[in-house]
């Protein structure tokens, strides 16, 4: 007989806690937290700030498709036919007006105009101009509000992307998603409120970097940071049990931890202990809910075909879009997909089509799929990068190929779904897609608009930070873009 058997026998004579061999699990937990439990039905947010949302939201959740690197507006959305006559002519100083340039082109002796080589056509009832590189997006122009006149102050990637994602060019501030999860709480207790995906891309390998801070919580507690949903390994870090530990063994360990922690709580009465018991149960539930989320085997064929062949490749943008829809179905508050590789300083003709091919059909599919499920009405979808690109060429210029440097003064972002007026184009740029002619929209206005759609007055969502009421949209006055609001 194992020496342990004696001990076990002795122990059965004693009385421990409830004394039964039953799993404590969720049933006991429900009673433990009885006052907060509620039945199914429409989800109610948990967490979040009192008083939020500030007003009835049009969107309950959002999906942000971030095109990292600075997509060329001139080759995608901002049609400038007059530029064909300006091929290889110098950008007039009257247009540039001494605008500061990155040091990648500030040393160029001239700034020759590179007209887009791509054909544009009008699409939809709205007659929105879209380039031939985005044939699928062209089919959903009546669902989207295209803002052509977003602008920023930053002219290099790291500060610019940090700026649009966190409202500040310097590291240390909370990201958009962490603000939403802090302010609005979660609609699904089995999944994170803020999920991030970083799919693969098809242009050159040297794509601009991302930074965890883009989905970080900055000065907010780390529970609000974005959780990466990974294509390889555990979809959520450390989700899987170690080798040799099955669900039964894990449950047995968790029961022990639960009972002992309960005992600890009875002794010391620290509410943190109680919270920890609940978090361990949630961790256990995540071990089921996350694989269920990422398992697309039950998606019908016509849906997979909608997203295009890439959907079969884990880690593709198409797969990420499909998962974004599944996350929306599960009421995850905010999903952000960072697609890299949009930094075309050269080889526009080679790399830009490849990038567009990555995202075009899947983006279309996401909108259509959300629409057909009735989810688009209360899901906000955002598409855009951190800045635009210059009309003048960087490097070698031919009719068929060229490069473009960073351009902060105008670039497009489009939105669709909950809270957005569909089928409109907002703002106009000059003939050179260089300056805004009408309706400038600062990136803080974009973020104010996103918050607005989710029922948040951006001026009133703040946290004390270094003596300031820190807001996502900064200290200056900014406004949601009323013209694109439904």
């Amino acid at each position, binding site marked *: 007989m194992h020496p342990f058997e004696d001990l076990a026998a002795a122990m059965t004579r004693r009385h421990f806690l409830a004394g039964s061999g039953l799993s404590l699990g969720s049933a006991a937990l429900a009673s433990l937290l009885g006052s907060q439990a509620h039945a199914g039905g429409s989800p109610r947010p948990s967490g979040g700030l009192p008083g939020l949302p500030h007003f009835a939201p049009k969107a309950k959740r959002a999906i942000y498709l971030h095109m990292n690197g600075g997509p060329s507006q001139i080759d995608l959305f901002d049609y400038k036919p007059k530029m064909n006559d300006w091929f290889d002519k110098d950008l007039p100083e009257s247009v540039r007006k001494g605008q500061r340039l990155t040091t990648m082109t500030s040393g160029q002796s001239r700034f020759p105009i590179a007209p887009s080589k791509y054909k544009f056509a009008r699409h939809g009832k709205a007659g929105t101009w879209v380039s031939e590189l985005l044939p699928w997006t062209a089919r959903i122009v009546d669902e989207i509000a295209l803002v052509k006149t977003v602008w920023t102050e930053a002219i290099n990637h790291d500060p610019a992307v940090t700026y649009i994602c966190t409202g500040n060019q310097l590291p240390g501030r909370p990201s958009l998603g962490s603000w939403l999860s802090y302010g609005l709480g979660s609609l699904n207790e089995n999944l994170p409120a803020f999920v991030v995906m970083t799919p693969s891309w098809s242009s050159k390998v040297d794509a601009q970097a991302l930074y965890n801070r883009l989905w970080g919580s900055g000065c907010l507690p780390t529970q609000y940071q974005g959780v990466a949903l990974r294509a390889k390994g555990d979809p959520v870090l450390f*989700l899987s049990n170690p080798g040799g530990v099955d669900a039964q063994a894990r449950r047995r360990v968790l029961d022990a931890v639960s009972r002992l922690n309960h005992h600890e709580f009875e002794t010391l009465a620290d509410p943190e202990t109680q919270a920890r018991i609940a978090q361990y149960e949630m961790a256990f539930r995540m071990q089921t809910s996350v694989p269920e989320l990422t398992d697309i085997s039950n998606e019908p064929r016509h849906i997979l075909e909608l997203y295009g062949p890439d959907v079969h490749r884990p880690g593709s943008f198409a797969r990420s879009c499909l998962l974004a829809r599944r996350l929306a179905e599960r009421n995850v508050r905010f999903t952000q997909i960072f697609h890299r590789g949009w930094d075309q300083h050269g080889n526009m003709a080679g790399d830009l089509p490849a990038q567009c091919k990555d995202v075009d059909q899947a983006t279309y599919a996401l909108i259509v799929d959300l629409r057909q499920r009735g989810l688009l009405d209360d899901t906000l979808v955002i598409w855009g990068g951190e800045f635009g690109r210059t009309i003048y060429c960087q490097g070698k210029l031919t009719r068929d190929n060229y490069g473009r440097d960073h351009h902060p003064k105008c670039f497009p972002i489009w939105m669709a779904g909950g809270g957005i007026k569909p089928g409109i184009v907002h703002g106009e740029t000059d003939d050179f897609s260089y300056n805004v002619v009408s309706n400038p929209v600062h990136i803080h206005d974009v973020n104010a608009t996103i918050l607005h759609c989710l029922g948040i007055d951006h001026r009133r969502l703040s946290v004390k930070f270094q003596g300031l009421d820190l807001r996502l949209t900064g200290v200056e006055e900014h406004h949601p873009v009323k013209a694109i609001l439904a």
Partner: protein
Amino acid sequence: MALGLAFWVALGLASAGHRPAVADPPRPGASHPRPVDFAREIRPILAENCFACHGPDDRARKAKLRLDVKEGALAALGSGDRAVVPGKPDDSTLVFRVESDDAELLMPPKASGKQLAPDQKALLRRWVSEGAKWSSHWAFDPPRKADPPAVKNATWGRSPLDRFILARLEAEGLSPSPEADRETLIRRVTFDLTGLPPTIEDVDRFLADRAPGAYERAVDRLLESPRYGEHMARYWLDAARYGDTHGLHLDNYREMWPYRDWVVRAFNRNQPFDRFLIEQLAGDLLPNPTLDQLVATGFNRCHVSTSEGGSIEEEVYVRNVVDQVDTNGTVLLGLTTGCARCHDHKYDPIRMKDYYQLFAFFNNIDGPALDGNSAKWAPIAAVPTIKDRLAIVAADAEIAALKRTLEDETAKLAARAPLAAEPAESEIPARADYVWIDDAAPRGANPQGDSPWQFVSRPDYPVKSGSGALKLTAQGRMQRFFETAAAKLVIGEGDALFAHVYIDPIHPPKEIMLQWHTREGWMRRAYWGENRIDWGKDQSVERLRMGDLPPTGEWARLEIPCARLALAPGSVIDGWAFTQFDGTAYWDAAGLRTWTPQPEQKYASFAAWIRARKADKGAGLSDPDKAILALERSKRTADQVRSLYAQYLRTGSAKTAAALEPIVAKLKAAEAKRKALDDQVATTLVFRERSGEPKQAYMLKRGEYDQRGDKVGRAIPAFLPPLPAGAPVNRLGFAEWLTAPNHPLTARVAVNRLWQQFFGVGLVKTAEDFGAQGEPPSHPELLDFLAVDFREHGWNIKRLVRTLVTSAAYRQSAKITPERLAKDPANRLVSRGPRFRLDAEMLRDQALAVSGLLVESVGGPSVKPPQPPGLWEAVGYSGSNTAHFQPDAGPAKVHRRSVYTFWKRTAPPPQMSTFDAPSRESCQVRRERTNTPLQALLLLNEEQYMEAARGLARRAWAEGGSTAEDRLVYMFRLATGRRPDSSEATELGRTLRDLLDHYRTRSAEARQVAGEGSPGDPCNFAAWTLLGNAVLNLDCVITRG
């Protein structure tokens, strides 16, 4: 089933703790027995709600009303009214406006988003009724050391500190908690002083020591542990934003760990805090600074940096300095100076000009703004280890000895080959034959061909030069060639290749060909005679016809202009081939006609050597010799000529250089070794002033780098004491000012951070903000008492730490009663012992320690314990040298304490960031403590925690006794420092039994859990391992109670 829980939001106090701070300190009950305290109760209301429009910022001020100073509040307004009329609330417009029902009149206005609570309005009214007593902002007055207050319970308390705590508790109708039990106490203090749990021996020793002062003795022992410095450093490194990468864009590796090690050492040797600050702020400006003092200045170099393509240097430069100013503001002054970058501070009396005057102190670094993506971003200091130093001394000695030998030998040569005997030749560079192949292939070449190279000599054969000629007799196509010459030919402008050939008159070849080998391979050929050899593309540089065969029976010179072979200047030839079709020819004296000096070239005369050195601008010469070379010949002194001549004899003379070559070669090797030693020595970023006038600083409008306003100099904000008399107006003076006795902030801010470290929350909860927007102290007199006491006792950190941890307040039990929870929910009154979850580093270090895995070596380069693959790759730029994570191997690296873990700032280690460790991209003086399911997943499943569970099982088996019960108790003690009570033991035992049952029938799974080399039966060991896994997840293990 659904639970209506915040998924990421901790229950209870963790989330409540993050609400806006001002209302947080416990307020006295409704009866309000004391007069209103302006500093603690009124000023925060005014600051939060009024200062934005009625505060220090002149430009933002409305109605000319200023409420941050007494004169402003009492002054007559334009209307004739006064905001505050002491004793007359009904005459005070302030009271009227905040109480107004009229939305037009109500203050603060709705648009501000602010709203006063009814009790706040009542407080304002009462304050005015009581005479509107005013005091300046508490934090800007120097701390005064008050006598500890009188208390009712004279038996409780061990130090003056406790009297302050107790007096407040008594005032709130609370009593202190009893002292924690001894196991809890020793675990608490061991964690707090070393970041590690006590060993069972530590606990037993403490329990056995029943003599008075046992606890104090344990504290003293812990303070002497080298683990203490590692633990204390960790908090400082958060504030200093230390990381192992640059933090922006490429986020390349930054070599900075010597600074981290300096911080560890500074705490371990208990460097006084004032010196600690002075050396970090201005170590370089101290007289004859030591290397340690230079390393310390890394504090102001820890900020993130970039070299992103396209960056504008000045913009980045300003950001760097701004980070320095803001971090110093937060860490040293507890002020949000950053607010004044774009405008006057809205709450504190920091003007925009003050900001740029502080900026000016840091505005003079001797290094580039962009980091160049280099680990060694100047200015840097080399930080050799003792081993490095010994090797360097030895290498220097070897170099010196070789130089002496060389000089002696040169003198001997000079005596034999006197300068006077040199021919008088011109020094103007002139084109001449440089013979590359004569009697032998060049050095390093590998002569080969269809048969061995055969040099024949006079008198039986023709020889053009030297002692022999290369004879080549061919049948069909044959050749002699080499292609790996170490001494290469370098083509200059207008040069021509040449060779001499003697065509045998009896058996002339049909064709002769020369070929040359370059980096492109054998792609250059020239031939004479018939076109028999079909290599290369005809009529191109690959096969160029130069003419007919030269005359037979005499030496002929073949010359091929390099331009015809498309060999551009700078091209390098390292191989040559003599080729012919049939017949016999003799080849001799081949090379390059050039004035470009050739590698390893030797010269027939001093003047020829001078010509060459003039041509290559003195390549290989020392700077003084270069200067001499540049002089006209007639202007050189005899000594100068001798210096050049010695160099010629050593390295340039065809006659003598060979004799000295071995010594010269040894010297070169020794110098190369020395350089390699330099390269392997670690470096660290330091601060150093530029020489000359300091860089001019300017006001920057709206904080923009390119919007310069007025010039500003270095100065201290007027609301703080001036620079001490005689202090230099630079960073050193700034540091001396900070640590001057009359400074109101430095000591308070430092003491508060230490209090926060040991008690979980600071006396001022907003450790980063002591200004008007920060939270007033819960125990202002105590904070002042500790601050003054700290300064008066030589800024002695260990003494202060000892004061804190030996106090009765610290030693209380953490047990929460309903009464305490109601009256002191967040324990801000310290009515019980501090209890909180361990920080990320402590959690991991504990797991490694209790499982017996921890490797306790101190210092050195950061290490990379395993992490899930793909985390760096998901974000990294492929060109970054931290784009791909490669874990270290071996316990000596992966089982080190977490303070040594490599910190990539754009993707910090998840074992750290999941538990609230900051990214280290910016300064952080206070970590949140969250409670999330991701943390549970990490502790349950992460590789090293699983490894620790195995280690725990192994120790329980090896050391825990012979029965399961003993082993189980031992395992629990290892992790918690105490024995399980009976119900805990029962639960652990039952869990073990169930796990044994589980694995008994699952041997394959058991082997996976047990891992390789597990002791005994894998099924058994797997069950114990999972029990260890459970133990490491217990609340009482991951919390320090």
